[in-house]
Every structure is written in C-alpha cells, then in structure tokens.
C-alpha cells in the first residue's frame, strides 16, 4: 500500500505526466496548424460533447485531446496527493525548519493547490458557462441578453487612424451603442467588455477570410479596408473570474518565493 502511495503521490509520476502532456501538446500544435478551422469549432463548444460528436469520424485528428482529458486530471490528482503528503511531513517536522524555510514550503504548497483551482476553473468554463452570439450589422438589431432583458443597437461607430498616417484606412476602435427598453444607453468598445444584468457583453470582430494569394499580394493601403463582421457575445462565465483570481495568486506567490525567499 505504501509503495502504491509513493508512486501515485511521487514526483517521478509528476515528471512522467508532465512529459506526456508536453508530447500530447506537441501533437496538438502540429494538428491544429494543419486543421485550423476544424479545431476552431472547439473554442466555443463543450469538450466532452465535441469529442463525442467527432470521436468515431475524426479519431485520427483528436486522439491527443482525449489524451489530455485523461492526463491533466491525473496530474491534478498527483499534484494534490503530492502536496498533501509533503505538507503533512513538513507540519510534523516543523521544528526542524526555520521560519523562512517554513514560509517557503507553505508558499509552494499553496501554489500547487491553487494550480488545481486553475485547471478546475477551465472545467467550470467548459461545462457551465453560457454564451450567446448576436451579429451586429445595423441600427435596430436586437440583443436578447436573457428572458427579461433585451438590448437594441442604436449606433455603430468606427474610429480610424489620423489622416496623416499610413494607417488612415484602418479601424482603430469600434464602439456599439446599446439601449434597453427603458431608454438607458450603454456603450461597448473593442476590448472593453460591458457587465450587464449578470452577464458580460463582449464585442468580437471576425475578419473575412482571405485566400493565401490575397494575403501574399502586397497590401493596398490607399483603399479603405472593408467593415469587419461584428458580433456581440453575451457571456456568463464564472470559471473565468475564478481562473483570473487563482492565476494571479500563483504569480504573486511564485514571485514571492523565488525573489523574496
């Protein structure tokens, strides 16, 4: 029993799992490079559902995602057991360590436990986030945030670079003005999400796909670039909030450990 515990909670297992994950990710880099559009459909889908739909038809392309779905929870388990194991040993023998050493050990234990939260937050985002996409093309477009809240597009404004610039025909910022049923105005800009009614509204721009020949040809900077396809994402994602908080804590704790201690 002790031997099994040493294996599953051991750092050698961590090394094996991390190496396995690295190899699976390397396969992922190669596959996503070759089948970019195919894997892009996974960005806004739930992983288990997506895998279920493509498992038999595209197994030769998606096997590495299945591998990641097994190896990442295994790493989480190993990390948890390893941290608990080491922490118990440290607490039992804390009289042997100086205060500085103890802070360092607790700091590292916290980093590992919070790392589990980071992976957990990805799981929450994948399983429990809700997302609705609305094209934004003209004034009057309706954004149905939820059953009780509707927003109307009242204005779409494009800001261009100054006229003396070589970039004068390129869009610098896009703003969409929205109005609710009571006439209250809201503004969503590119890269500035708007919190609204327990949701987050994000303005997303999708450029029209260009052929390789079009991309390779010299760019004509004297003609205005076409208006991009705009979409408003209405998102509820508690995983992201948890992810942001836990990842920030990890960076602070790691910096504290390596720089201060």
């Amino acid at each position, binding site marked *: 029993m002790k031997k099994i515990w040493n294996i599953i909670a051991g750092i050698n297992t961590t090394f094996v799992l991390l190496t396995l994950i690295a190899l699976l990710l390397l396969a992922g880099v190669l596959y996503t490079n070759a089948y970019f559009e195919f894997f892009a459909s996974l960005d*806004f889908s739930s992983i288990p559902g997506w895998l279920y739909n493509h498992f038999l038809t595209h197994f030769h392309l998606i096997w590495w995602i299945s591998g990641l779905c097994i190896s990442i929870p295994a790493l989480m388990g190993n990390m948890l057991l390893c941290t608990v194991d080491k922490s118990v040993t440290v607490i039992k023998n804390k009289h042997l360590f100086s205060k500085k050493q103890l802070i360092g050990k607790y700091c590292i234990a916290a980093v590992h436990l919070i790392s589990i939260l980071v992976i957990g937050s990805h799981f929450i985002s994948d399983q429990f986030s809700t997302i609705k996409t609305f094209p934004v093309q003209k004034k009057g477009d309706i954004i149905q945030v939820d059953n009780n809240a509707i927003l109307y597009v009242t204005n779409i404004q494009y800001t261009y670079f100054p006229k003396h610039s070589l970039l004068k025909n390129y869009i610098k910022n896009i703003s969409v003005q929205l109005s609710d049923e009571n006439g209250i105005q809201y503004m969503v800009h590119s890269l500035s999400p708007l919190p609204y009614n327990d949701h987050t509204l994000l303005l997303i721009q999708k450029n029209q796909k260009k052929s390789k020949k079009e991309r390779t040809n010299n760019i004509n900077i004297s003609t205005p670039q076409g208006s991009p396809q705009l979409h408003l994402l209405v998102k509820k994602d508690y995983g992201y909030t948890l992810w942001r908080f836990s990842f920030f804590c990890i960076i602070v704790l790691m910096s504290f450990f390596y720089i201060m201690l």
Partner: protein
Amino acid sequence: MHYSIHTWLMVPACLYLISFIAIVFKKEAFSFLLVLTGFFTYTIYLCLRLFIPGQCYLQSAFDSVFLTPWTIALTIILLYLYYRNGTLLYASFVLIICVALALIYPKGILPPSPHKLSYLAYCFFLFESAGIGLFYIGGCYALMYCSTLNNNNFKYFYQCIILGFLFYSAAQFVGAMWCYRGWGVYFKWSPRHLQSVLVWIVYINCIHLKYIPYFNKQKISVYGFISALLTLYLYFCSYLHEYNFPRIGN
C-alpha cells in the same frame, strides 16, 4: 524615408558579432562595452520603428521578432552588472542568432486591428519576449555547463530559467485576459495557444527536475538546453507562419 531606418539594424548586429569575437579572445571589458553600445543602437532602432506608419504606433516596436533581441541584450547587461563575470557575455551568441533572424524577417508592421490595440497586448509581448529571451540565455549557459562543468554556469542557467518562467507565466496571465476581451475565450485551440502551454509545461518540468534524484546537474542542463532549442524552434515556426502576411512600411 520610412524604409531606410531598417538599415540601422545592421549596426547592433555588427556590434554584437564583434562583442562575441571579443569575449572569445577574453577581452571582457571591450565585449561588454560593445553589447552596451549595441543595446543602445537597437533601442534607437525600436524607437524609429514606432514611427513607421507616420505616427507613433506602439505595436510596431512590440513585434516579438524585434523585441526579443532587445530583452536578451538587456538581460545580459543586467546579469553582467550583477555578477561581474565575463563568461556571462558568451550569451551574446544567442543575441547574434536573434538579431540575424530580425535581419532576414520582413521589417514592416502587420496591419492594425482594434483588438490588438490594448495595453494588455503590449504587456503580453513584453513579458513573453522577456520570458523566451531568458529561456534562450538559460539554454546557452546550460550548454556551457555541460562543456565546462563550472558550477557558476549552472547557477546562471537555473536563475535564467526561474526568472524566465516568472515572466512567461505573467505573459500567459496577461495574454489570456487579452484573449478573453478580444476573442471572448481565454483559451483557444489554436497552434499559438497550444505552443505557449507546451513551452510553459516543458519549463514547469525543468524546474521540478531538481527534486528528482535521478537528475543531476548535467542531466538538468541537457534538458534545459533541449528545452531552449524546442522553444526556439516553436517560435521560429510561428514567425514563419506570419512571414508572408501583408505588411506596411516593408
């Protein structure tokens, strides 16, 4: 007039090359002076790049291909000033490779789009360049440790890896926040994102090797060197991917 600024890039390239030759011939002070001069001339080049479109456009200087040599040079200078050890200047070899890459790469700027114009994007490119710069330098010291077994080289290697990992982690954090605001998700199943996670995982593994009895300093150094090569290869491939993109002021 806008296009002639790129010839300025030859100046730091030559200075770094001479600096490396100087340190091979044990002219430590002269080599450091050349790295320092090269760094200042490269900074001037980056400032000139800002005005390629005819107005100050920050994204021009924050292109990873052109920013990485700057962060590498800054790291070498700071390491040398801290430790005052001439062997640190051998890392100017990494600098030569990165500046050579910048020399052959298209010099224009990628057309702007609203979701690239954010302080998060600038922070991301700065942290990422600092991270991968430190990984490359770490790889160089790892190779030096394997060939000389000088413990100082291992110390420099490990510190570069740790500091690089902190910067790279910060880049992952800021990059994901940028991605969420610009694309609506904080992780995309794209080669760029997977590549970042891959490099991150490889270096997490590298940091943990110290606690595995099987891995002595030499084995850790070999792993560190291979990791640096893998990082260079992956970033080189992502640069190649953007090689044919239309550019302004090329």
